């Protein structure tokens, strides 16, 4: 019988959403349009339209050694041209954000090639070759993985994941990188490290509370689905906990 990955346990909507994001066969729903230039502006690694700085010559000119692994693995476009490795970092609010930091890392590892994802408490970073990163970032921002109010693109000073929301439902941001404008759209006025942008970048309207609660991947008993409500997830976690406690890393039962 062919192996069919299950991704994560649970019978609730939260668990189903988690499985969807991790499943590469699931097509992410596009919610908003964002231009390539806007993605470059928010990340702040280079000026829009400028050439990609490189760290090594193109592979075609580098004279690579004969290596069977190099023949097997097709390099990414960015690796072929010798692009720098750059990053995008997200913070997701505990209050029903569509994604959460660990899930972002699982998703990036499963869905994308040549990325180095990492989760650090309330934030998640994806590192990749610059031109490939821009494509990935565009997908992450324009689809259901992102909500303009409850998710934030923050390269530093990421505080906000576990805090209360602002009065207007935006996640707290110490550097006020984005604002909820009068037309009810969220605009980035600073790049991800807090440097002011020449022009604001519109990332669209925040999703409403009903949509967020239906699409969240965070268990939250305070208004959403509590973890204790998901019997299957609890049973799975308890089984893993029990096996690891009893047998360390080599469970045999």
């Amino acid at each position, binding site marked *: 019988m062919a192996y069919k990955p299950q991704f994560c346990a649970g019978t609730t909507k939260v668990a189903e959403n988690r499985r969807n994001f991790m499943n590469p066969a699931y097509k992410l729903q596009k919610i908003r349009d964002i231009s390539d230039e806007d993605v470059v502006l928010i990340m702040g690694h280079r000026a829009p339209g400028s050439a990609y700085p490189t760290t090594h010559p193109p592979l075609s000119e580098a004279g690579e050694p004969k290596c069977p692994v190099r023949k097997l693995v097709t390099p990414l476009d960015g690796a072929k041209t010798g692009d720098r490795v750059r990053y995008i970092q997200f913070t997701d609010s505990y209050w029903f954000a569509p994604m959460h930091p660990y899930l972002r890392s699982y998703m990036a590892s499963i869905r994308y090639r040549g990325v180095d994802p990492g989760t650090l408490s309330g934030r998640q970073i994806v590192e990749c070759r610059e031109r490939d990163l821009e494509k990935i970032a565009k997908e992450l921002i324009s689809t259901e993985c992102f909500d303009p109010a409850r998710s934030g693109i923050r390269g*530093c000073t990421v505080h906000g994941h576990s*805090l209360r929301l602002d009065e207007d439902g935006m996640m*707290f941001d*110490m*550097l006020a990188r984005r604002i909820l404008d009068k037309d009810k759209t969220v605009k980035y006025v600073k790049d991800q*490290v*807090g*440097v002011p942008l020449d022009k604001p970048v519109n990332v669209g309207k925040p999703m409403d509370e009903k949509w967020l609660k239906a699409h969240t991947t965070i268990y939250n008993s305070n208004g959403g689905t509590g973890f204790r409500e998901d019997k299957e997830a609890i049973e799975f976690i308890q089984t893993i906990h029990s096996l690891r406690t009893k047998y360390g890393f080599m469970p045999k039962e």
Partner: protein
Amino acid sequence: MTEAIFPQIRIMPARFLYPETAEKLLNGICKVGVVRRMTVNGPRLPPTITEGPGRGLPNPHPGRKVIHVGGEEFELQVQVGTLILELENSDAIPVIRQVCDEVFTNFSYTLQEGKFMKSQMTVSDYAKYGEIEDKEMLGMSDPKGKQCPIILQGTQ
């Protein structure tokens, strides 16, 4: 040591307050006129970027704003999240609850009675600040901080 004979309350709104709402709430509480001591807590809004490649650059933030409370003017340095008050007597608590009801119309809040202010120094306090002379200021603000506590004259 401060005698904990005065009632203390903690107001915690469900959302972080913008300066306009905080100003409205503080003025409402100020009018009640029985507050002995008060601390406003919340995450800090630094005037400059503290980390990353933009370190040292100005950090304009809509939450860092000058507000007027009880005739005094001061700049908020935090996004207001929690207020801790020490009152003259507990008769004023229902009045303060009414003020909160009027201000927090779009979201909920909790108002708790208990002991929320420090009444004696900890070992860490001794290590960091030495002996704090004014016991009324214990735990209210950073004794080595540049900003002094604000004294509201009130109505009494």
